């Protein structure tokens, strides 16, 4: 039964995506309820899958071949798989949990925060299905397909406010995102040309020269190196690494608040996950140990370091909150990409690999949670008070103590103040980098704490230690914490703006903050979960399977 789960997780939201439109012909405003229903089932399935993966000794690897495995590998490892494999292992299992959790939680924000309409929820479910596929697929070409599904639905959701600004942002995202995906496809094409395979495991084995019809390892082949280059650039575009990040601030800032929460927590995470997956298990550390191949890794590291430094610097210069945290994502994904590269860099031993893998996995999860929580808090504050700029945050702490407290906790988590999950991720990334003795990289990783502090401290000071700006009357009068109840809120369409704060939004923000701190104490559970991944990367194994 559990072999069906990976497929169900993808199919359910995609099929569910048709329902809001279909049922919408009969009744209005059913989108939210349908999405809630579908995503609750989805979350249950995700939990089931996680239990199946982690339930036994070590971590299981659950494989589902779409359409059934009629011929091909059939248990033997010599032959190639024909057909698309969906793989739930320790890595994708964790990510599936994150997607299911975030997708369900963001609904609490979208109920009042909008955007309204059945079409939105169709897109929302489709995006969830695409993300599930992105994390679960075991096939390089199929990964491209899901990247495109995610990309296209995101373009649509970004523009769902139907104003000029978001349309421009979505167009920009469309152009850059599609270019990135095309580059990725080009890289996959090169690999297919050289190995004749698309399945990740098969490509990896072919690169290592395992099949008898391949004459030795292909790691020195320029075509393979070029393939890595294209794939890296393509996926770094999706993960918004400097200088390929320019779509992201516009998209985050122009999207409706609920959409920003969702895509900030998951979409770039998908790009970074794909990069880690391909780098770690398809190319593997053995590829980078050959000849001068490590140089291309170092090139990526340089870009990632620039991303950390410039992302933080740009974030500190922003006036609008959503842009500020968008640039913060540029910086944080720089850290993650550094970790991905450090894990397979030949300068590090097994300890470096192990710690860097822990760092990447924990920071991917932690960043999704923290950044999603930050955007939820910022969105809730905007709905409650109309404040969308840093200057309008002056003295808000007195009016919105809970939301401000969440912002403070989540902001400090992104700085890396312990005991939060943000600290755990940063610690592992830092000690992992330290084990490689790549000193400039190590400096950047440690300095990122201070760089992040640049913008977080500015925000906290505004919130807590500044009176309301003179001349600028507050957008809404002082009101109690809680929904600023304009009458008949349920049926009426509420445009973006003050007065539409809901308890769901507050609950989302506060629970994100609480979870951030609680997970800060779950270090050993998280590293246990990431252990099989680390083992696979250390052994340069193509499969993440049960590890000790």
């Amino acid at each position, binding site marked *: 039964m559990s072999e069906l789960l990976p497929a169900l997780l993808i199919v359910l939201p995609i099929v569910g995506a048709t329902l809001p439109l279909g049922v919408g012909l009969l009744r209005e405003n059913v989108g939210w309820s349908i999405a809630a229903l579908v995503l609750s089932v989805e979350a249950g399935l995700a939990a089931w899958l996680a239990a199946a993966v982690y339930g036994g000794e070590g971590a299981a690897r659950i494989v589902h071949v779409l359409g059934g495995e009629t011929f091909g590998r059939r248990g033997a490892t010599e032959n190639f798989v024909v057909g698309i494999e969906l793989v739930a292992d320790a890595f994708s299992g964790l990510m599936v949990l994150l997607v299911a959790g975030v997708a369900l939680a963001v609904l609490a924000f979208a109920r009042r925060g909008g955007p309204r309409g059945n079409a939105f929820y169709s897109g929302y479910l489709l995006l969830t299905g695409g993300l599930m596929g992105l994390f679960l697929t075991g096939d390089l070409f199929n990964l491209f397909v899901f990247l495109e599904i995610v990309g296209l639905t995101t373009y649509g959701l970004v523009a769902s406010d139907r104003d000029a600004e978001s349309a421009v942002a979505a167009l920009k995202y469309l152009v850059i995102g599609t270019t990135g995906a095309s580059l990725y496809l080009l890289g996959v094409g090169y690999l297919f040309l050289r190995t004749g395979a698309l399945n990740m495991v098969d490509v990896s084995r072919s690169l290592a020269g395992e099949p008898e019809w391949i004459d030795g390892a292909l790691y020195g082949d320029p075509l393979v190196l070029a393939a890595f280059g294209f794939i890296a650039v393509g996926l770094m575009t999706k993960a918004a690494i400097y200088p390929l990040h320019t779509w992201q601030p516009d998209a985050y800032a122009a999207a409706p608040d609920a959409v920003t929460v969702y895509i900030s927590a998951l979409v770039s995470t998908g790009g970074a996950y794909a990069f880690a997956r391909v780098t770690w298990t398809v190319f593997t550390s053995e590829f980078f140990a050959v000849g001068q191949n490590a140089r291309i890794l170092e090139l990526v590291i340089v870009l990632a370091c620039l991303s950390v430094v410039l992302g933080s610097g740009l974030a500190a210069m922003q006036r609008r909150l959503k842009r500020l945290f968008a640039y913060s994502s540029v910086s944080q994904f720089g850290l993650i990409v550094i970790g991905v590269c450090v894990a397979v860099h030949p300068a590090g031993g097994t300890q470096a690999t192990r710690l860097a893998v822990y760092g990447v996995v924990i920071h991917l999860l932690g960043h999704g949670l923290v950044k999603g929580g930050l955007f939820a808090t910022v969105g809730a504050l905007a709905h409650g008070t109309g404040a969308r700029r840093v200057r309008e945050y002056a003295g808000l702490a007195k009016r919105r103590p809970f939301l401000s407290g969440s912002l403070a906790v989540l902001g400090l988590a992104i700085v890396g103040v312990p005991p939060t999950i943000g600290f*755990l991720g940063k610690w592992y990334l830092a000690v992992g980098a330290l084990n490689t003795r790549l000193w400039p990289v190590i400096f950047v990783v*440690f300095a990122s*704490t201070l760089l992040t502090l640049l913008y977080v*401290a500015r925000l906290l000071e505004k919130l807590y230690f500044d009176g309301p700006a003179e001349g600028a009357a507050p957008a809404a009068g002082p009101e109690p914490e809680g929904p600023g109840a304009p009458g008949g809120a349920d049926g009426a369409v509420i445009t973006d703006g003050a007065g539409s704060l809901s308890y769901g939004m507050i609950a989302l923000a506060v629970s994100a903050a609480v979870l951030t701190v609680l997970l800060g104490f779950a270090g050993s559970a998280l590293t246990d979960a990431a252990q099989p991944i680390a083992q696979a990367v250390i052994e340069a194994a193509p499969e993440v399977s049960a590890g000790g």
Partner: protein
Amino acid sequence: MVEHVVDSWRPLAAVLISAVAIALIVASHRRPNVREAWSVLASVGKFAIVASMLPGVLDGTEYRWSLGMVPGLDSEFVFGVEFALRADALGMLFALLASFLWIFTAFYSAGYMRGLDEPNQTRFFASFAASLSAAIGIAFAENLVTIFVFYELLSVATYPLVAHDETNEARAAGRKYLAYTFFGGGFLVLAGTALVFVLTEPSTTTFGATAADLAEADPALARAAFGLLAAGFGVKAGLMPLHSWLPDAMVAPTPVSGLLHAVAVVKSGAFGVARVVLEVFEPDLVGDLGVGLALAAVAAFTLTAASIIALRADRLKRRLAFSTVSQLSYIVLGLGLAGPAAVAGSGTKTVIIGGLLHIPAHAFMKLTLFFCAGFIHVETHTDYISEMDGIGKRMPLTMAAFAVAAAGMAGIPLVAGFVSKWFMLIGAVEANQAIFAVVLLISGVLNIAYFWPIVYGAFFESHDDADSKPLVEFPLGGRASGGASAGEPEAVADGGAADDAHDDDAAATDEHQEGGHHDTADHEHAGHAVHSDDQHEDHDHHGGPPPGGWERAGWTGAEGSWLMLGPILAIVAGAVVLGVVPYQAVFLELIEVIAGGGVG
């Protein structure tokens, strides 16, 4: 001595009791009396819990709590490192001190905050309790990662206290504070911790378990780790050149300057240095690597330079802050000397005792001084030393306490400061580092030079008939006519009128904030000098004596609220007890346990 470790929840309880109090304080924000009662209860409870472990610790028992004792949780915090608290002798020293002095500060701050009718009192008391939680966590942390957790939390918890006033000056000080402490914590200490973690095999950061591996590591990396950790903790300990947050942080309410920026926060830095020297690297390795001497040299420079700067500070709290910078370096100096002493083979124990004993000694004395400064501020709104002539008439008990504590600072016998300095002097000579003994003696003279004018002015001068204060009023290095010479605060300069402030702006950078003060110096005889840089504009107060001169208050406590006077007298009594019968006061006994365990 038989060391054994018992599992106990008490270290955690000591940390968490004030964290629980935060919730209660916030919950009762509408009823100030209840709120302050929670503060007092938490402080007494905290002290009781810490003290309950004291007899065991003196007998060699260590109380340990780890995350694994919580059902369902693994004690591993990050890979290979446990989240654990352990009450050992060194930790007890700091915890006992901080929790004991918090009791008095809890009363005092209630008096202070009400006396000034400060806004945001709930936030103040909540942050204060949070800071104490973090400080005790630092004291009991069992490894570098755990200490880092609390070190960062302490930075976060004290930030609202520094920026409390919400004025531009306070916000700027808060920014500076965050920048410095996070540079020290999140960058330097974290990097040092990570380096220790990487250099040990299997990776660990537990105190007392790392020295052997570090001795075998690449000496350059081991030195780097020591440098990072010492500098990182040195930021909070006010080591130059990373000290400048501390004088600026004096914009905070005085109880904060007192307990946090003279005891809990800055001592957490000095305490961190102690952990690094005594238990991460251990004196032998510190000596072998040659880093002890470097640390001692930085400390010696700091303690001299800060004393000289203090000579020229006119704002009392600023002068005290530089005095703190200087005195903290005594502690660091003692610890740094442990390295060369271990190499020389003699004096290790003595310098360690001297350095560590200065932690409580300085705490008692400096807290007294700050409390006096705060009391003067509440009662008379006087902040500047140049306006305090004759104030002994108005606040006799306060200024008497001030005089006693100041004498202790200078190392005059029968007060706490003497004992610690004595040990350090002897130890420095034993370790063949007599040059540091000379530095200590010079610093004692400088201490007298910057404290005596205050005491003398308060008791033996009156406002209308005061000598000029050339050191604070003249540009650095004296005027072209050669009126003032450094080192003689009593010298009468010709042309007593204050110079135009613009002349000395460039030279006297430390006086920069007081530039406005110089402009108004001429008008002070009218009695109402309004400081252009006054941070309490909204309170509309004027410094200095009322028009008719200071009124006389008796020696029976008529000078102000007993809520504030009581703690002052209690603490100064403590400083004297530490100086007269150091072996009966428990601190020296604890320190001998530490020095015995760390060296023997």
